[in-house]
């Protein structure tokens, strides 16, 4: 049983009550079917109310759920013949990013993603999914390789952010991220990016410059964590919940802002409830994206990506003045 989040408590309590009544019916041979049916109806309503109307902060909690499926979970479900490749050929191998080659519905593909752990031990090994420069450089190496062999690229985004450490700075965290942004913009093969958990700032974006960008319904994507935003804007990290609301970080928010192409529906209660079913929803949209993109030429792929990012942003002109140059 997946560990429960605070806001799910009413659902759990009701579920427990129903199973108690069931046991009671069986043991004492007293017919409580009517009561049970009534409660089950209430449970359905309650689930609709809670899961159908998740608040930003609740989605943050689901996105961070310990048991939420990771990149490797989805790779296993979606692809065959996955072979993980290691190292950036410059410094080392970063376990916070995984990548390799595989087949998707029989065709070659390169798949890359942030990789966090599900328990403390694995999280330490994978640095909580927070990459160093060598992670981004490994990802870039694999992307350029995909380009060489003309296979599409799928990136799974799932990180709190690039690691803020001394060694990361010394080895050029900024340059590693920046280089990926530039190089991804120019890739001649289709790139599909899917945010599966937390999309934390530049560290997420460094795997996120794609032709299509999708988000799982309960994933988040933001310029700074809610805690960080609260600390910065109101000098109080405990206002994270408020920040999660103001910062517009959920999939529906990003769709409205014109940043993402699609929202991938999640299993009721979150992706961790049913990996197989969740993978099927991802499969559907991934297949659709790759089919669409496979029709574009190399130049068209670059141009489509260019226009996509070019159009992101909101601005106006002083006094509605006509701009002096069209730019």
């Amino acid at each position, binding site marked *: 049983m997946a560990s429960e989040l605070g806001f799910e408590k009413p659902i759990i309590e009701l579920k427990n009550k129903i199973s108690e009544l069931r046991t009671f019916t069986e043991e004492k041979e007293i017919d409580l079917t009517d009561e049970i049916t009534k409660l089950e109806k209430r449970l359905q309503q309650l689930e609709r109310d809670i899961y159908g109307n998740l608040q930003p902060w609740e989605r943050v909690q689901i996105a961070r759920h310990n048991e939420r499926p990771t990149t490797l979970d989805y790779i296993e479900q979606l692809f065959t013949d996955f072979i993980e490749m290691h190292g950036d050929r410059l410094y080392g191998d970063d376990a916070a990013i995984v990548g390799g080659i595989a087949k998707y519905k029989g065709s070659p593909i390169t798949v890359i993603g942030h990789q966090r752990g599900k328990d403390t031990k694995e999280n330490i090994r994978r640095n909580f999914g927070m990459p160093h420069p060598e992670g981004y450089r490994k990802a870039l190496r694999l992307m350029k390789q995909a380009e060489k062999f003309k296979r599409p690229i799928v990136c799974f985004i799932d990180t709190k952010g690039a690691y803020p450490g001394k060694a990361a700075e010394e080895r*050029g965290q900024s340059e590693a991220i*920046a280089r990926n*942004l530039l190089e991804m913009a120019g890739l001649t093969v289709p790139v599909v990016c899917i945010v599966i958990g937390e999309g934390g700032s530049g560290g997420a974006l460094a795997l996120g410059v794609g032709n299509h960008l999708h988000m799982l319904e309960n994933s988040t994507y933001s*310029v700074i964590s809610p805690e960080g935003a609260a600390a*910065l804007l109101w000098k109080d990290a405990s206002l994270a919940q408020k920040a999660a609301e103001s910062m517009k970080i959920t999939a529906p928010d990003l769709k409205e802002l014109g940043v993402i192409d699609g929202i991938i529906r999640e299993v009721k209660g979150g992706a961790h409830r049913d990996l197989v079913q969740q993978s099927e929803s991802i499969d559907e949209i991934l297949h659709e994206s790759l089919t669409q993109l496979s029709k574009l030429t190399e130049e068209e792929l670059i141009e489509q990506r260019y226009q996509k990012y070019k159009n992101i942003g909101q601005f106006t002109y002083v006094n509605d003045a006509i701009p002096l140059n069209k730019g």
Partner: protein
Amino acid sequence: MLKDFLKKKKRYATIPSERAKQEVPEGLMTKCPSCRTIMYTKELKNNLHVCDSCGHHFRMTAYERFDSLFDEGSFVEFDKNMIGENPLNFPTYEEKLEADRKKTELNEAIVTGKGTINGYGAVVAVMDPRFRMGSMGSVVGEKIMRAVEQSIEMGVPFILFSASGGARMQEGVLSLMQMAKTSAALEKLSRQGGLFISVMTHPTTGGVSASFASLGDYNFAEPKALIGFAGRRIIEQTIRQELPDDFQTAEFLLKHGQLDRVVSRLEMKELLTTILDIHAS
């Protein structure tokens, strides 16, 4: 305790007398925070805001930067009237933009334009940290992208002077996406064989350092400029150890192979001219 005894304690504090303060009219003199030399503000300005005795680089406005580089009368500004909106309906953001517009007489944290540097044409963008700490929101991203497109169209190099605290929080994920947008523009320039020179000035951090500022064909920085991805305080909290004094300075980056050169502002125009000349030949 002996330990306490050995600890150095500050015994005196110097409080400047009221008279001393009054003797110097505001703005006439400036004290260098690095070597404490007191100099005429006017002379400091004439020296491109570089301390004559120790070389400390003071902050410079975007327009002063253009003046220091472009041949007289050659500067044509782009997109001067572009201003930000409040896409997330973030509380007090519009007021803050308005206040900074008044305070700085700038419409946003970057000025872009074209001109000539000792006769060589270039498109130049200069960030100004007085406006919202030089942070990058939609307008900064859009103006950079347009400037890069201009440089492609005109077939002249693009030079950018960065000075920024990073992404603009109040525009949320739209700010983040400006990193991809500006980098995509630079990719286009690069693919067409165009030259991009990045000059990092104090400070160049966060999303700006992790996008266009690090993507120059040549990456330069002014002396002692703070340059880095994550904030010093965050790193210290993460690794639980103190960082060296020169951490994330231009000199630190040079030592770690992240920069081509550290360049004094006084030599900037000459260096750029030489590079533009080499590329024009």
